[in-house]
């Protein structure tokens, strides 16, 4: 935790800012949300690391998808991810978003969430404990340091592919594409 090393702040304030103030939007889909309250209250205080639950995706930079993703919920997840401001990180919580988990053969769940939205980090475990969240957070810090937490860049570069996958899974989407095709930057 290099939070109070001043030189780092001076060199890369944005990166340090993002590391130590991860405002999280919890997308309580499946069974994972049970693990979140204990992590932010007295016993495992997440706020020590600067992680704070916020109400709307506009104010957040960490997107925590906890639990299995049904086809219907995918629509809301995509919408929320697109409404978050640009340097944003998404973390899949539990085994279900990774590869479908125990619902691997269910007709109604999404198996590989990162086919539809970019995921920066995964937390394995069929409902990992709160400590796992903090491990993920520290892991995310290192990713941010090494500029590897570039989910939002991948989303912008390969938006066409993501969009195609989304339309393939969900049929028609009610909102226009986030990046119109000419912004290839």
């Amino acid at each position, binding site marked *: 935790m290099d939070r109070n090393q001043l030189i780092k702040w001076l060199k890369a304030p944005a990166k340090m800012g993002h590391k130590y103030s991860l405002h999280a939007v919890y997308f309580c889909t499946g069974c994972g949300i049970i693990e979140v309250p204990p992590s932010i209250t007295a016993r495992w205080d997440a706020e020590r690391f600067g992680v704070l639950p916020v109400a709307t995706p506009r104010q957040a930079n960490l997107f925590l998808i906890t639990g299995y993703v049904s*086809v*219907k919920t995918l629509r809301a997840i995509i919408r929320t991810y697109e409404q978050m401001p640009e340097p944003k990180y998404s973390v899949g919580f539990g085994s279900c978003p990774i590869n479908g988990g125990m619902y*691997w*053969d*269910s*007709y*109604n769940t*999404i*198996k*590989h969430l*990162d*086919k539809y939205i*970019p995921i920066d980090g995964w937390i394995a475990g069929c409902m990992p404990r709160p400590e796992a969240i903090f491990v993920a957070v520290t892991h995310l810090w290192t990713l941010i340091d090494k500029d590897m937490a570039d989910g939002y860049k*991948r989303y912008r*570069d*390969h938006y066409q*592919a*993501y969009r195609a*996958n989304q339309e*393939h*899974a*969900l*049929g028609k989407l009610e909102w226009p594409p986030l990046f119109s095709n000419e912004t290839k930057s």
Partner: protein
Amino acid sequence: MKDPLKDKLTSAFDGIQIQPADRNQISITANKESILSVLSLLKSNGYNHLALISCVDWIEEKRFELVYILSAYMEKDKHFTDMEKTNIILKTSIYREKPQFISAIPIFENAEPYEREIHELYGIHFEGHPRLTPLFLEREYKTPPFRKDFDTRKYVSDVFDPIPFVGKKADKR
């Protein structure tokens, strides 16, 4: 056992078997033509709460078994003074090829969502049902998912697997 109700049922309908399932349940099986009249009789005798309609797919015997679960909704009727409430499980079976049945809405309005669900997941068409539109599922399915002959693994492999990965992971694979 509430004999007056049992006798009334057996006398009214032929081809009806009544046997106690376990401590406070009675299971009644009747043929599909007499189901509605049985339901209305039971309703007039205090069983005014249709708890659930569900369906069992006996694929070998090529029949669907519709199960109506009724209970007495806070009814302090003379039938139940001596012991706590008993639930009635009413079963009937219909052919599997072209599953067709009449809707129970005229007797129990709250049957509407149950029948919609059964229609969506088993493909049983209920005449007289106001709107048999999809309730839970996002996508269209050729064979309704809850049927035994629906192979989920094959469905998953030919719907979700062809979707390619994106970015670095795609070229790695």
